[in-house]
């Protein structure tokens, strides 16, 4: 039942864009029909998931398929249920948001294309999440990847967008090829394309390692784990915002899903893998947020935060793997539970943030943080939503971000607690790193929120911005509600997470510790409510105080300077300057400043940027070098027929002498 509902939803979502194609370029009705179908499909999918949770039963749908080794086999288990929720939820909200954000009348060129691929991407992701057969999985995977490519290049008439799309395409195809190899090795190990746990007895020595490494590279490229993140920032920045929300909130999680799924197949993962994942997670987390602090582009900044959060998720997964190799149920539950919950949370607040960013761009026509400012006055609702998202992504109570990080903290500290002295204490060093990540995130989002929404407008556009239409505000509202719900009542989620974890580690005995007993979820609720009540109380106190006493309005105290202008405000770059300086060794910021100015300096300009090191220093040079090498090889084909005939002769000799 649940499977059929989800499949129905997938079909409807996939075909949602077609009617729009048939209707005119600027037809409002096409837009409405498409959106309605997409929403319907997503709703059905969510219904299927809820049904699965309610009944807890799953009946795999199996159909014959006349491809070698392929079999149409889909089933929902705890893991796929977890990942299905963001797919459908964010898609649903994103489609509604698109009504106002990407009006067909305003974008006759690409509106229909965008809606079509939005649907197919949703379908592809949902399919790969429930697929139980490698080939079916690959189908879903590639449908998702290609749709994402077309979505990123929605405005392909801009050069920058084309380049971005190209980098994304290369990255995703390399990932796909890694998956080819991965599934081939799996097939060799398991003897079938049906995805299932590996049998230790048939497993060849090197196979498990090969599987893990291939999965790490293939899925890591999609998830954007640190050195593999090259495509991510610009892709998120260039895409339309509700697409960015989908990509950052859901698409990169598909990489995580793959990693989780594959690791669940490995019988006895060596502890080094867990350590490796933990290290990668720390690297992605710290560096991701460090890069984010250096950005001026609102959406680019949010994209780097996706890398950071992926890092946190990977840390949780690594912890779970360590727990698996040491048979520590509590580490598995806390680590994986935290990771999966963070998958949800990140989907929620990152989608929220991207939608808010979309509203900002929609209203102020720029992504440059330093050209915005003072939007809290002109678009109060959006700014409130953004504030909630910001607090949530910093992992601050009483919102959802805190809960997942809390679980991971408990798990990491737990690694200290296993009796003998020199156990896995090393891994507990990830806890301070997580703290560092949190603090950096706070710094970064204070900067963003302050520079974009507070103070006074730095440009005309920002001054004349306007609040977004309800069709854009409503989805944000829903996301805000979800953030509060999970943040205040994590106990509701506990059974779902428990189910997922036991799907990941079946050998985890059923009577083992429960998440609810390992983590004081009730206390989180209590403290959250207490915090909110106290805040209201404090607010009331201040309000009454101000009510009684004289309150005057005045200009900001400029420390004696009487005519402050918007340009005097602290910009985001100056706010970040110290932190960027601390991370100079990896960020390699570039500054263009005037040299030796005269005594009375003329009008001049200062400009600083933080490019992506991995892309600019490693990847692109490698590509250029290879291209140069290849162009050099062209001397082989100089059009001289005598030489060509010689080639034939030489090939003949060479092959004749072959043994």
């Amino acid at each position, binding site marked *: 039942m649940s499977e059929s509902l989800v499949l129905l939803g997938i079909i409807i979502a996939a075909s949602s864009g077609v009617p729009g194609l048939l209707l005119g370029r600027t037809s409002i009705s096409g837009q409405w029909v498409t959106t309605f179908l997409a929403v319907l499909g997503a709703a059905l999918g969510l219904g299927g998931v809820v049904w699965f949770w309610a009944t807890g039963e799953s009946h795999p749908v199996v159909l014959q398929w006349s491809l070698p080794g392929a079999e149409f086999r889909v089933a929902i288990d705890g893991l796929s249920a977890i990942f299905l929720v963001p797919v459908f939820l964010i898609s649903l909200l994103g489609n509604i948001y698109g009504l106002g954000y990407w009006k067909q009348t305003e974008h006759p060129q690409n509106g229909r294309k965008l809606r079509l691929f939005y649907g197919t991407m949703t379908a592809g992701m949902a399919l790969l999440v429930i697929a139980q057969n490698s080939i079916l999985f690959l189908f879903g995977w590639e449908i998702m990847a290609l749709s994402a490519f077309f979505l990123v290049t929605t405005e392909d008439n801009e050069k920058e967008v084309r380049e971005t799309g190209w980098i994304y395409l290369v990255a995703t195809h390399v990932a796909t090829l890694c998956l080819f190899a991965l599934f081939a090795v799996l097939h060799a190990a398991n003897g079938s394309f049906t995805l299932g746990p590996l049998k230790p007895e048939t497993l060849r020595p090197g196979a498990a390692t090969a599987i893990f490494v291939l999965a790490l590279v293939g899925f890591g490229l999609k998830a954007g784990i640190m050195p593999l993140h090259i495509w991510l920032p610009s892709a998120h920045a260039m895409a339309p915002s509700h697409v960015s929300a989908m990509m950052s909130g859901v698409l990169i999680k598909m990489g995580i899903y793959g990693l989780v799924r594959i690791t669940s197949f490995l019988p006895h993962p060596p502890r080094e893998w867990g350590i490796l994942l933990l290290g990668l997670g720390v690297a992605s987390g710290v560096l991701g947020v460090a890069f984010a602090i250096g950005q001026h582009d609102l959406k680019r900044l949010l994209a780097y935060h996706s890398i950071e959060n992926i890092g946190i998720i990977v840390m949780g997964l690594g912890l779970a793997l360590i727990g698996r190799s040491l048979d520590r149920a509590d580490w598995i539950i806390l680590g994986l539970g935290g990771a999966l919950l963070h998958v949800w949370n990140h989907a929620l607040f990152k989608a929220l943030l991207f939608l808010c960013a979309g509203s900002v761009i929609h209203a102020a026509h720029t992504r440059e943080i330093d050209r915005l400012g003072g939007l809290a006055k002109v678009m109060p609702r959006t700014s409130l939503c953004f504030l909630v998202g910001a607090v949530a992504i910093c992992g601050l109570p009483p919102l959802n971000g805190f809960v997942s990080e809390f679980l991971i903290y408990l798990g990491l500290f737990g690694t200290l607690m296993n009796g003998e002295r020199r156990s896995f204490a090393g891994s507990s060093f990830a806890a301070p790193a997580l703290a560092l990540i949190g603090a950096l995130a706070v710094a970064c989002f204070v900067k963003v929120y302050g520079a974009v929404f507070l103070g006074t407008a730095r440009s005309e556009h920002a001054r004349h911005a306007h609040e977004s239409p309800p069709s854009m505000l409503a989805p944000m509202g829903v996301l805000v509600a979800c953030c509060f719900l999970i943040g205040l009542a994590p106990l509701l989620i506990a059974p779902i997470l428990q189910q997922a974890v036991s799907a990941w580690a079946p050998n985890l005995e059923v009577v083992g510790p429960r998440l609810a007993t390992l983590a004081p979820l009730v206390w989180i609720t209590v403290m959250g409510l207490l915090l909110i009540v106290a805040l209201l109380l404090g607010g009331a106190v201040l309000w009454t105080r101000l009510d009684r006493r004289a309150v005057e309005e005045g200009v900001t105290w400029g420390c004696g300077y009487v005519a402050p202008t918007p340009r005097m405000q602290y910009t985001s770059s100056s706010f970040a300057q110290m932190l960027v300086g601390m991370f100079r060794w990896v960020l390699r910021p570039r500054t263009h400043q005037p040299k030796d100015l005269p005594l009375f300096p003329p009008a001049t300009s200062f400009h600083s940027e933080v490019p992506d090191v991995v892309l600019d220093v490693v990847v692109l040079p490698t590509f250029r070098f290879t291209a140069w090498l290849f162009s050099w090889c062209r001397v082989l084909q100089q*059009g*001289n*027929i*005598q030489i060509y005939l010689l080639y034939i002769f030489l090939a003949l000799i060479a092959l004749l002498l072959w043994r």
Partner: protein
Amino acid sequence: MVPLLDPLLIVALTLNFVALGVSRIRGVINAVALQGVLLGILALFVHPAIGTRVILLVAVTVGLKGFVIPRYLVHALREANIQDEVKPGVGSFMGSLSLGAVGTGLAMVFSDTLPLAEQHKHLLLVPASLATVWTGFLMLTTRKRAIMQVLGYLLLENGIFMFGLLLLEATPFLVEVGILLDLFTGVFVMAIIIHHISREFASTSTEHLTELKG
């Protein structure tokens, strides 16, 4: 085996050198033509059991290789009023001649190592064919004139044909004729192309044909 076989083959081999060494295209054409005729006659000696099939085959071979194709080439030569001097593309005549000599020697040595059937040991046919093939390759890769390359191709075919003589049973008449027909058509089309080339570039040197690169 018939004693006359080896002398004929030696003549054929010498013709290779003539083809390599002569500086006039006509000369080369004639050499190749004569070799064709020899091949036809060879067929008679290789297969003492002379049947109508062999006779016919010889007739066709001699006719095509010995007369039709050379005539046609000469005609094309006149058509395209190609001047009748050729220089080897790489090195001198001496160079290509000595290369040919080395090749021939190697062919002799190499063919001794080949696991030939009993009746074909001590038979000059195999080395001769290898040597001729080698000569053809040499001509194809060292001559700049398109027409000379055609002749090289013909030498190549001659060499292969020589080997084919060893096993006429394997290749029925129909196939043999088909092969010869293909050969003729090939030369025919090539000649047409050469004609176009000479019209297009006012010369038949393949130096002009290096536009398509990379």
